[in-house]
C-alpha cells in the first residue's frame, strides 16, 4: 500500500497525458471502503464549458459563484442537470454559445444535451438556480437568477419548458441576484421563492475604481448591497413581492448562497443567507411568514473571532447526529469555512470549524460549492468542498493558492471530527480547476452519491462515486399531498440499530445551486431499518414506517 502511495505521488507530477494511468493508480490507493471517485465526464457526455464572459476587465459578475441544478425534469426517476453560463460583458449580448445548458439523463450513465429541444435556452448572465414544483403539478420547474432580470421556467410535463416570468411576476427587476430557494413560509402547501440579491454593480463605477485597484479588482464592498426578495405564491400561478411586508428587506447584504430549514425546531421554515464580506443573515420565521433577522443572536452572523467573512456557499445537515440541522458555510481564502453546530434545543449555533477540522485543508483557498452528504454510506455526513480562486493571477498575489486548485473531500469520523481523504479518493480529485458550484446526487441509481462540478471558465466535471459497496443505504423520495408536493421542509428520523439519523428536505443550497431531491441515508453494516418517522410541514403528527429493507429507493407519499 505504501508503495502504491509513493507511485501516486510521483504520478501527480506527470502531465495530463497520464490521466488514464492516474485513474488506475488512484483506485489502487483507496483503502477498503474508503471514499473513491472516478472522472466520468467524457463517458457520460456531460460536456459543458462555462464561460464567464470576461474581457480581462475583472467585472464583479465574472468573479461570482455560479450554480447548477440536478432535478428530474421528465419524471423518469433519473436526475437531469442544468448548467448555468455567463454572457459577454459588459454588453450582455445574447449568444447561443453562452447559453445555459440542459442535459437529460438517459440511463444513469449517459447524458444528452437537450437544451434547445426542451426550451431551456437562457441567454442572460446566469448565476443561481433552483428547482421546485411551484404549481404542485408533479413536474419540477426552474427559477434562475441572473445579472439582470431573473427567469422562471414552467415544466410543461412533456419534456419542454415555458418562460412564465412575466405572468408569475418574479423577474425581480433588473438586479444582480445570486442564490435562490423554494420554500413554504406559511405551510399552506404552495412554494414561495426567496432570492438572495448581491450588490448594485454598475460598469461606470467599476471603470472609475479599477485603475487604482491593486492587486485585487473592485469588490463587493465597492457597491451598495441589495436587500433580498421574497415572493409569495398566490396559488394561481402568480406571485406577489412581499419582501417589505415579511420583513425580508429590513436589512441588506451582498447575498450569495441561501438555504432554508427549520433551524429553531418551531415547526416553520427559516432562512440562512451567506453574505460576501458582511455579516451573514438569518431570517427567523414567526410562523406566519413574517421574518426577523437574528443572525447575531443565533450565532451565525460572524465567525468565532467576530469576523464577517467572505461567505459563498452553504449547506445544511445533521453533522453530529444530535437531531438538529447544522450549517456549513464556505469562505474566501485565508478564512476558515464555518461549521455552525446547532445547539440543543435548537436555533442557537456554536462555530466549531476548528474543533471539527472540517475546513483545515481548504483554509488557503477560496471555497464555493459544498455538499454535506454520506459518500461512503457509513451513517454520517462527509463534506465535499469546491475550491478555486477568482483571479487568474492568484498565485502571484497569494502564493498559497491559485486560480486552479484541487477540490476537497473531508470524511466525517465519529461525528466529531473530519479528516481529509482528498489525496486518496482517486485521480478525479487530483485535478486542479477553479470550481464553483457542485451538485451531489445519485445519478446512476447505485445508492452512492455522485458529484458534478461546474468549473469557472472551463469544462464541467462528472465524478462517479466508486466507493466499495461494503455499506448499505436507503434513499427516500417524499411526495406531499396536502403539503407542497416536493415535501420541502419535511423532517425524517431514521432508526437503525443503535443509530439515529435526521434529515430535513431542503431546496436551493450550495453555491447558488440545487440538489438533494431524494434524501440519502448511509446505513453502514445495518441490514434493516427499524423505523422511519416522517413529519410533514405544519403537522405535529409523525408518519411511521417500520422494518424496511436496506439498499432500496423508497417513495413515500404523504
Amino acid at each position, binding site marked *: 500500500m505504501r508503495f502504491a502511495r509513493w507511485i501516486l505521488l510521483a504520478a501527480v507530477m506527470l502531465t495530463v497525458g497520464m490521466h488514464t494511468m492516474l485513474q488506475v493508480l488512484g483506485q489502487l490507493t483507496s483503502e477498503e471502503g474508503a471514499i473513491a471517485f472516478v472522472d466520468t465526464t467524457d463517458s457520460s457526455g456531460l460536456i459543458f464549458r462555462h464561460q464567464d464572459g470576461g474581457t480581462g476587465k475583472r467585472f464583479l459578475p465574472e468573479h461570482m459563484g455560479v450554480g447548477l441544478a440536478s432535478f428530474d425534469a421528465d419524471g423518469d426517476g433519473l436526475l437531469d442537470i442544468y448548467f448555468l453560463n455567463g454572457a459577454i460583458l459588459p454588453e450582455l449580448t445574447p449568444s447561443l454559445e453562452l447559453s445555459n445548458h440542459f442535459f437529460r439523463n438517459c440511463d444513469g450513465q449517459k447524458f444528452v444535451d437537450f437544451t434547445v429541444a426542451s426550451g431551456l435556452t437562457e441567454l442572460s448572465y446566469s448565476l443561481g438556480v433552483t428547482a421546485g414544483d411551484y404549481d404542485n403539478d408533479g413536474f419540477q420547474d426552474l427559477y434562475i437568477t441572473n445579472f439582470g432580470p431573473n427567469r422562471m421556467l414552467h415544466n410543461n410535463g412533456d419534456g419542454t419548458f415555458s418562460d412564465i416570468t412575466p405572468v408569475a411576476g418574479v423577474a425581480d427587476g433588473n438586479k444582480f441576484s445570486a442564490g435562490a430557494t423554494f420554500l413554504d413560509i406559511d405551510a399552506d402547501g404552495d412554494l414561495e421563492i426567496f432570492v438572495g440579491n448581491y450588490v448594485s454593480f454598475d460598469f461606470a463605477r467599476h471603470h472609475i475604481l479599477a485603475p487604482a485597484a*491593486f492587486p*485585487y479588482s473592485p469588490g463587493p464592498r*465597492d457597491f*451598495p448591497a441589495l436587500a433580498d426578495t421574497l415572493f409569495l405564491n398566490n396559488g394561481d400561478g402568480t406571485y406577489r413581492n412581499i419582501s417589505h411586508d415579511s420583513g425580508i428587506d429590513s436589512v441588506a447584504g451582498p447575498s450569495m448562497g441561501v438555504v432554508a430549514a427549520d433551524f429553531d425546531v418551531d415547526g416553520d421554515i427559516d432562512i440562512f443567507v451567506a453574505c460576501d464580506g458582511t455579516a451573514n443573515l438569518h431570517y427567523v420565521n414567526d410562523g406566519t411568514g413574517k421574518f426577523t433577522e437574528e443572525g447575531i*443572536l443565533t450565532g451565525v452572523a460572524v465567525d468565532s473571532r467576530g469576523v464577517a467573512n467572505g461567505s459563498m456557499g452553504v449547506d445544511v445537515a445533521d453533522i453530529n447526529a444530535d437531531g438538529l440541522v447544522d450549517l456549513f458555510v464556505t469562505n474566501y481564502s485565508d478564512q476558515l469555512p464555518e461549521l455552525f453546530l446547532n445547539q440543543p434545543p435548537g436555533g442557537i449555533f456554536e462555530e466549531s470549524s*476548528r474543533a471539527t477540522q472540517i475546513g483545515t485543508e481548504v483554509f488557503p483557498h477560496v471555497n464555493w460549492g459544498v455538499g454535506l452528504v454520506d459518500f461512503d454510506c457509513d451513517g454520517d455526513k462527509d463534506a465535499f468542498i469546491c475550491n478555486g480562486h477568482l483571479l487568474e493571477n492568484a498565485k502571484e498575489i497569494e502564493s498559497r493558492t491559485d486560480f486552479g486548485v484541487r477540490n476537497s473531500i473531508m470524511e466525517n469520523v465519529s461525528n466529531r471530527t473530519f479528516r481529509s481523504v482528498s489525496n486518496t479518493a482517486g485521480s478525479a480529485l487530483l485535478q486542479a480547476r477553479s470550481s464553483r458550484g457542485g451538485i451531489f446526487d445519485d445519478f446512476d441509481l447505485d445508492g452512492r452519491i455522485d458529484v458534478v462540478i461546474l468549473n469557472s471558465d472551463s469544462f464541467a466535471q462528472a465524478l462517479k462515486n466508486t466507493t466499495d459497496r461494503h455499506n448499505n443505504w436507503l434513499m427516500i423520495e417524499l411526495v406531499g399531498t396536502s403539503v407542497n408536493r416536493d415535501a420541502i421542509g419535511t423532517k425524517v428520523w431514521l432508526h437503525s440499530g443503535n443509530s439515529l439519523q435526521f434529515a430535513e428536505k431542503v431546496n436551493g443550497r450550495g453555491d447558488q445551486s440545487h440538489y438533494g431531491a431524494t434524501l440519502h441515508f448511509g446505513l453502514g453494516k445495518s441490514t434493516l431499518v427499524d423505523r422511519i418517522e416522517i413529519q410533514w410541514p405544519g403537522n405535529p403528527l409523525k408518519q411511521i414506517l417500520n422494518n424496511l429493507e436496506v439498499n432500496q429507493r423508497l417513495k413515500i407519499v404523504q
Partner: protein
Amino acid sequence: MDLRSVRAMSRLLKLLLVGLGCSAAIILVTILLTPLPEVEAESAVSLNDLSVTSVSDNAVALPAPVAKLTLPDVANEVPTRQLQDELRAAAAELTELFPADAGSWHIAAQVEFELLQSEKAEEYWNKCLALQPKHFGPYLGMADLLTSKGRFEDAIEVLKKVFALGGSAPEVYLKLGEAFENRGILDQALETFTAGTQAFPNDADLLAGLGRLQSQSNLLPEAEGSLKRAIAIRGETQQLLSSLVVVLMRQEKREEASTLRTKLQQLLIKTSSKPTSSDSAFQRAYDAALRQSAYRIFEGCGNAFYENMRFDLAEKYFFRAIQQDPKIVSGWVGLSEVLLKQQKYADVYQVMKRMVELEPSNAVHLMNLASVAFKLNDTQASEAALKKAVAVDQDHSALAHIALAKLYLATGKFELAHQSLDTVIASDPSLELKQLKAEVYKAEVQSKQTAADHNARRITQP
C-alpha cells in the same frame, strides 16, 4: 489610533523583536540630564539609577542647531504597488548588508508573509532560525505561517520550542492554544488558555480564547465570566461581543444578549460601511491593512539597522515608519533615538515635541524633551517640560522633581533646587536624595564663595 492600540502594538513589536535582541524600539531616549534606565513610560524607576550631572557635563557649547527633518503630519499614502516594492527593497537591503544577522531574515520573512508569499517567508524564517535558534520571535512568525498553510501540527511543534526557550509571553500561550484548537485538540487548547490566563490574568486575548473554548466545551457560565472579564479589560470588541451573545443566548439570557447585539451591529456596520461615490472601499480596506503592516516592517528595519550600527539607514526606515502613520508613537521613539546617536539634537528636539503632542500625559516623553532642550541650552523649555511632567503624572512626579532639582542646580537656582528636592525627600528620605541635597548646598556655598572672591578681586584689583 488610541493609546491602547499604541501600547498593544508596542507589546507586539516587543515580542517580535526582543527575541532577536533588537531593543531599540522599546528603549526610551535616555535623558541627558538625568539618565534613565531602559524603561517604558509606565515602568517604575529606581533612584539608584540616577546620577548627578553638573552643568559642565552637559552644557556642551553647541552651534545654533537647525532642525533638518521635515516631519510628516499626515500619513503619506503611496500607491499600493509602490509600497509593496518598497517593502521588498527594504528587506533586500537588510539581507544584503547583513546576511549573517538573523534579524535581517526575520524581517525579510515578515515582508514575504505580509505579501502572501509563503514559500519565501518559510525559507527566510528557516535561514533566520539556522543563524539564531534561541530567540523566540521568529518561531512565532513561523508558527503563524504554518497555521496559514493549515500545517497545525507543525505550528504546535514550533510553539513548543518557544516554551522550551523560556518564552512565556501572553502571545505564546495564545498562539499555542489556538494551534491546539485549530488541530481540534480542544482539551489541550482549554488547558493552554487556562494556564495562560493564570500566568497573565489581565490579558484580554487569552480570556477571549478561554471563553471561546469554554463555550465549545459547554462550560457556559465559565465562558460568560471569561468573556465579561475580557470585555472589562479590552472593551466591547466584535469578537468579544459576538462570543458573549452566543453564550448568553445558549443560557436563555435573551434580553442581555439583545442589548449586546445592538452594540455589535453598530460595530459591524462600521467595518462594512457602504461605499461612497468616489472612493473604493475594497481598495481602502486592503491599503489600510498593508500600511499598518508596512509601518511595523519599516520600524523593524529601523531597529535592525540600529542594532547593526547603521544609524543612517535606521533613520531612513524609522522615518518611513512615521510617514506611514505619524500617529503611532513608537516610530517617533525609534527615530528620536537614532537621531540622538547621530547627535542631531535639533531634530531630536522636534521629534520629541511630536511625541509629547501624541502622548501629552507621558511624563517620560516630557523629561526626555527637557533633557534635549537642556542639551540645546534652552533651559526655559527644559524647565517648562519638567514642570509639566510633574503635573501630568503622579507616578513619575518624583523623578521629574529630581530632574528639576538637577536643572536648578546646573543653572544656579539653588533655592528652587532645594524646594524640588524637599518635595521628594518628604516621601522618600533616601540616602541618594540626601546626597543630592548636599550637592546643592555645596554648590550654593561654592557659588557664594566664587561671588565673594570675585567681589574681593574687584575691590583689591581696581
